């Protein structure tokens, strides 16, 4: 297992996305809009999804929060944009298993996202890292219901 120091995690990955978040802002038109928060810290997220023929055609987010929640969500949008709903769900489940310490995280499949594993050492912050992903899972389910 790769050992990532907290400082390296912040400096190499988190801060880049925190300062320059990808896919941030409203998405119009959208098929799904979800607002969720982390009651522990007051972090809030709005997630916008647009589907096209079983694919996640576009995704964006807005909100305020700590660097880990915002960076993780920013990375997520980059990763899942253009994937099929099924693929997006698989990536999300894989991230959740990695953050639960159940698997190591496959660098080939997850790319930069494996660096989020550094957060596992700080159990309280895992919720921050998963806020966007858990919201995405709900949004994928809602999108499927709508198109069914």
């Amino acid at each position, binding site marked *: 297992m790769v050992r990532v120091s*907290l400082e390296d995690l912040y400096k190499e990955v988190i801060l880049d996305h925190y300062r320059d978040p990808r896919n941030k802002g409203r998405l119009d038109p959208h098929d799904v809009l979800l607002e969720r928060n982390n009651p522990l810290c007051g972090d809030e997220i709005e997630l916008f999804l647009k589907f096209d023929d079983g694919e996640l055609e576009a995704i964006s987010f807005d909100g305020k929060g700590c660097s880990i929640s915002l960076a993780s969500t920013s990375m997520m949008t980059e990763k899942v944009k253009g994937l099929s709903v099924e693929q997006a769900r698989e990536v999300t489940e894989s991230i959740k298993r990695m953050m639960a310490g159940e698997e190591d995280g496959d660098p080939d499949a997850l790319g930069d996202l494996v660096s989020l594993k550094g957060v596992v050492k700080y159990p309280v912050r895992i919720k921050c890292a998963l806020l966007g992903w858990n919201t995405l899972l709900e949004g994928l389910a809602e999108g499927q219901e709508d198109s069914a």
Partner: protein
Amino acid sequence: MSFDPSVVRKDFPIFETEARGKRLVYLDSANTSQKPRQVLERIQLFYETENANVHRAVYELSEKATAAYEGARAACARFIGSESARSIVFTRGTTESINVIRFTWARENVREGDEVLITEMEHHSNLIPWQLLAGETGATLRHLPIGDDGRLRLDLLEDYITDRTKLVSLSLMSNVLGTINPVRAVADAAHAVGAKVLVDAAQAAPHLSFDVNDLDADFLAYSSHKMCGPTGAGVLYGREELLEEMPPFHGGGEMIREVWADRATWNEIPYKFEAGTPNLAQAVGMGAAVEYLETLGMDAVREHEMELTAYALERLAGIGATIYGSRDLSQRGGVVSFNLDGVHPHDMSTIVDQEGVCIRAGHHCAQPLMRRLGVPATARASFYIYNTTEDVDVLIDAVEKSKGWFA
């Protein structure tokens, strides 16, 4: 009349441990305090030499247990200036104490159209019970606003205390802003319209010397675990005549006088409110915590915390932190909420943790207050008898480090 915090620190075994391999800098006592050896040993002694159930067995050991438990009640009465131990109900803590009032006095006395007044700075434990009561009864819950200096808007009191006000429930000291509230002034206004006053002293009891008679409180709640005692113990103080009138809370053993198949009569106060076997060792530990604090002297505790708070406010201002609440030390205790531009408090807390520093980050169970302050969260350092200026220095260095990461 003062003490040396570095000597006091030696009473607390936890400081023999390390945090992330460094000297433990514990700045989260507003959340829960650490426990001195004197309290831990008293609990151990109870289990080793006095353990039996109280009030109901007719043998020497039970008499010893009862004496220890009732001795703790007397200490808890003395600590807040209550003349009678009959006014002291042992509970699980402040939250339970407040909920006892919700389920007993308030259910009998608060009706549709009545008003319950709290303040904008209350902890959720002094907010949610009243939201629930309002929902059940059709009463209105109102919130006395605070000013930008973090102090209650007493000038608005006339508009907020009306003929419909039945209960005013407010904290003596804020867990976020550290503000010490002018409870007596509020109590006088409340009593003028016949309302009762409940004081949440969870934050005040560990740090301030006060007297329920000077406050003119009808009810007052405080917890053991924030004042050097164990978790699972707390006090509900009530004026004797009010406790006498109130219906019981939990039903069960100990709280009864006589029981038939279909009805029962109630035990005298405070036992009417103590159904089941109480948290005996915890109550005894709470009594030991009172004695520990009395030995230090509550005036000396306050003096020490004012010095430390002054130093912390000065150093935090020096690194450009935004500080919430009053700067007037006579109006505030040793709870300091702050933010640093560009660093989310959660990130700050994780980063200073690397230096062995424990601070709280988040909404501090006061989400409406966070909205009033216009922030999603703050960082919070809170001081107690075992903290030193060195602790503040380590905090400042660690906070500056977190700033460096985000620069």
